[in-house]
């Protein structure tokens, strides 16, 4: 788990990333955006079950997009 290796990973759509990295926190390099600058495609550069391990691994990146790729286990009460 973690780094995707030496070769540059292929760019995937956000739904593809959600499917491929299910239930993990992912860091992507955004490769395509929509008219509102919202990410639509990206390369997964790191993925981890633990959010804080991911943050440590992404410290070396100048710019990266981070999100959880999974269904929430619980209802939100925020």
């Amino acid at each position, binding site marked *: 788990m973690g780094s995707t290796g030496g070769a540059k990973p292929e760019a995937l759509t956000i739904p593809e990333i959600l499917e491929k990295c299910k239930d993990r926190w992912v860091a992507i390099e955004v490769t395509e955006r929509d008219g509102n*600058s919202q990410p639509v495609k990206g390369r997964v550069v790191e993925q981890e079950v633990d959010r804080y391990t991911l943050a440590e691994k992404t410290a070396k990146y100048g710019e990266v997009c981070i999100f959880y790729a999974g269904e929430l286990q619980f209802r939100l009460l925020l």
Partner: protein
Amino acid sequence: MIPPTAAVETPFAKYPTVFSVLRGRNGAAREYPALIIPTSDYCVLPKVDAFNLGYPEAASVDERTPLPNTLTFASFNAYGRGTLIKIERVDIGSISVENVEFVAFDIFQTAGYDVVLGRSLLRHMRLELDFAAGRLRMEKVTAPR
């Protein structure tokens, strides 16, 4: 009505979220699908990300000798403490806001979201949340409250 200077309109699924880029004082940037919570006085980001954006003082809160910029807050179930920092710039599409106050605080990972956009940013916006249609619209206004 104050005319907007920039606007973003985007769909959302269950919760109102929008991808937001936070640029720190070390020049690094982090982007997140940030949860919009208008009743939160401040925006929130994880402590470790605050550290990575150039705010090492946010990495830990010392209970005995808190920093002057330590914020005590009330949430729905407890009091909490976090370090108040100013993110150099927040970009949401064509909208840019500089020097936005964020509290470095760790929301439980199981929430699935750990970055919140609260009033410290939203006071610069006119915000429409259409839950029936699953769309949100943000407009930056020239004179924040």
